[in-house]
């Protein structure tokens, strides 16, 4: 095996600052930009064709929920591991925080969708006919979420940007500055998590539950948030895998990163099933007309294939794979499972939102049977591909200005961990200041 020099503080700074602006080829960004533009045109065409029939918005709503879950779920990984002082996660935090750029795409998309909603007056909703709901308050919440995510990214990357631009005056790095930075990141992270949980509630309630008369399930918002966190972690892992493979960052994204994340991924996959089962069992036992309709609509009717695929990809396969040590304690295993979860999340969001919008309409008698499955048209596909491309484009663009790994945080990790001899073996010593 070739000898690899241990990472040093100086070497890390030099290496990572040198990578700023060198990740992501120009031609790839050009293609992504064109696709994003095409998606925007697709969305404009959709809007211009008017809000009705409402079922044409199901796929767009699913695209929004998918991006909210994946991209905007990523910064929570940075916050949670920072709070738990998990050193294994030091290299992935920047990749996770960069997910905040997703908000620049989801915010306008959400606002567009809110204007397509039917009249909410007298409708079961979380707004109880409160003035401004849902359009104004949902928009405000999403804007705040996006702002908080970008603020987190801005604050966290400030010392590194000063390093990359060689402008030490931007960040002298006094003790007070570091204290404020670390405390600020925790506070911003806490706000971000709270906002994200609320936005998940607004999205699934207003773009889902309120459209399906007879659906009032208190577990759906936490389900949406938890499966969103699962997808956020999966996306982070996939991005880390890509940075490791294509960004030349193999030394930084070691086994620890993927192993640590795989344990969380396994836990979140179990939670996915737990929440799904709670919903299914309660409705199955209730057997009221509304509940039978809900089971038909979301689980065992026109979207059975989506439901089964979602459970397989979000729970059964991750569980079946990650319980094995050789898969869990590896680099490729968790990345592969993350890929499954990402696909599973997309299918799950399609199941919820396409089904919900397929029965959306004015207030009236509750339905008793689900309409046939609805398939996407060309505009749906264009908007979806465009939205995902726009997010990827913005992510790569952000990588042109900030290092792919938080240099200051990574170097703190180097300070506080050490390999030490312990009798006849060598052990890692990890120090965690209060």
């Amino acid at each position: 095996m070739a000898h690899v020099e241990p990472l040093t503080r100086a070497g890390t700074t030099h290496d990572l600052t040198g990578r700023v602006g060198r990740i992501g080829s120009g031609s790839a960004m050009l293609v992504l930009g064109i696709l994003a533009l095409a998606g925007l045109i697709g969305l404009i065409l959709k809007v211009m064709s008017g809000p009705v029939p409402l079922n044409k918005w199901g796929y767009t709503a699913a695209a929004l929920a998918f991006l909210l879950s994946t991209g905007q779920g990523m910064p929570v990984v940075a916050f949670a591991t920072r709070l738990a002082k998990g050193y294994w996660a030091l290299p992935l935090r920047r990749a996770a925080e960069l997910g905040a750029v997703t908000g620049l795409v989801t915010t306008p998309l959400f606002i567009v969708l809110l204007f397509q909603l039917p009249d909410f007056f007298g409708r079961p909703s979380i707004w109880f006919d409160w003035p401004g709901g849902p359009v104004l308050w949902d928009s405000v919440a999403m804007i705040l979420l996006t702002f908080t995510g970008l603020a987190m990214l801005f604050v966290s990357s400030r010392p590194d940007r000063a390093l990359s631009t060689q402008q030490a005056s931007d960040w002298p790095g006094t003790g007070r500055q570091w204290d404020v930075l670390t405390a600020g990141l925790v506070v911003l992270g806490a706000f971000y998590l709270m906002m994200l949980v609320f936005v998940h509630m607004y999205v699934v309630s207003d773009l889902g539950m309120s459209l399906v008369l007879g659906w009032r399930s208190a577990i759906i918002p936490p389900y949406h948030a938890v499966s969103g966190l699962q997808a956020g972690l999966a996306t982070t892992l996939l991005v880390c895998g890509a940075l490791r493979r294509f960004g030349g960052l193999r030394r930084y994204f070691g086994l620890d990163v993927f192993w640590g994340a795989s344990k969380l991924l396994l836990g979140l996959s179990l939670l996915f099933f737990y929440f799904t089962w709670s919903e299914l069992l309660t409705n199955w036992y209730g057997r009221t007309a509304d509940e039978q309709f809900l089971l038909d609509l979301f689980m065992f009717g026109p979207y059975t294939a989506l439901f089964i695929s979602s459970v397989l990809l979000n729970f059964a396969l991750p569980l079946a794979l990650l319980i094995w040590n050789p898969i869990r304690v590896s680099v490729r295993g968790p990345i592969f499972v993350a890929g499954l979860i990402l696909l599973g999340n997309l299918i799950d969001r399609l199941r919820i939102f396409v089904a919900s919008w397929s029965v959306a309409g004015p207030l009236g008698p509750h339905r008793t049977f689900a309409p046939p499955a609805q398939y996407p048209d060309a505009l749906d596909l264009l908007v979806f591909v465009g939205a995902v491309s726009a997010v990827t484009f913005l992510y790569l663009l952000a990588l042109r200005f900030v290092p792919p790994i938080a240099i200051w945080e990574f170097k703190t990790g180097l300070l506080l961990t050490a390999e030490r001899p312990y009798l006849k073996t060598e052990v890692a010593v990890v120090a965690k200041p209060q």
Partner: protein
Amino acid sequence: MAISGAQAILGLFQEPEQVAQALDALRAAGFASRDLKTLTDSPYPEGAFGEEPEKHRLFVFPFIGAACGIALGLLITIGTQLAYPIVTGGKPLLSIPPMINVMYEGTMLGAIMFTVAGIIFESRLPYLTGTPYDPRISEGYLGVLVTRASGRLPEAERALRDAGAVDIVTK
């Protein structure tokens, strides 16, 4: 302490470094690694005394237990419903959702019980062979136990004492 006729010998140490030295010396003297054991009152990191990693099959036990548990769960849930076939709440006679709940508990119980049995079995407990032991180990002393040392006890004792053993126990 008289050591004639003994099969095993235990050296007591006060410092972990001495234990590592004693094991080196014993191995150098030709004692097989499988006949050398360290006795401590708390766990030390793997390989701290230069010992070989312990092999075990504990991970097999939960799977066997889970299989037994799920089978028992299936038997109970199907058996009781068929043995006393009464429709309640309009639910089918073999209702899968409640069966899953009971089978889940059975699976977990089986897995946990077999794991505990596996832990005891793989730890070689109950340990009744009567090799030398000293209660001072519970007080922080460290022991190096040489088993199957018949005929080479003086050599083993010398190696233990040279490494700094404060006492030698035989049985």
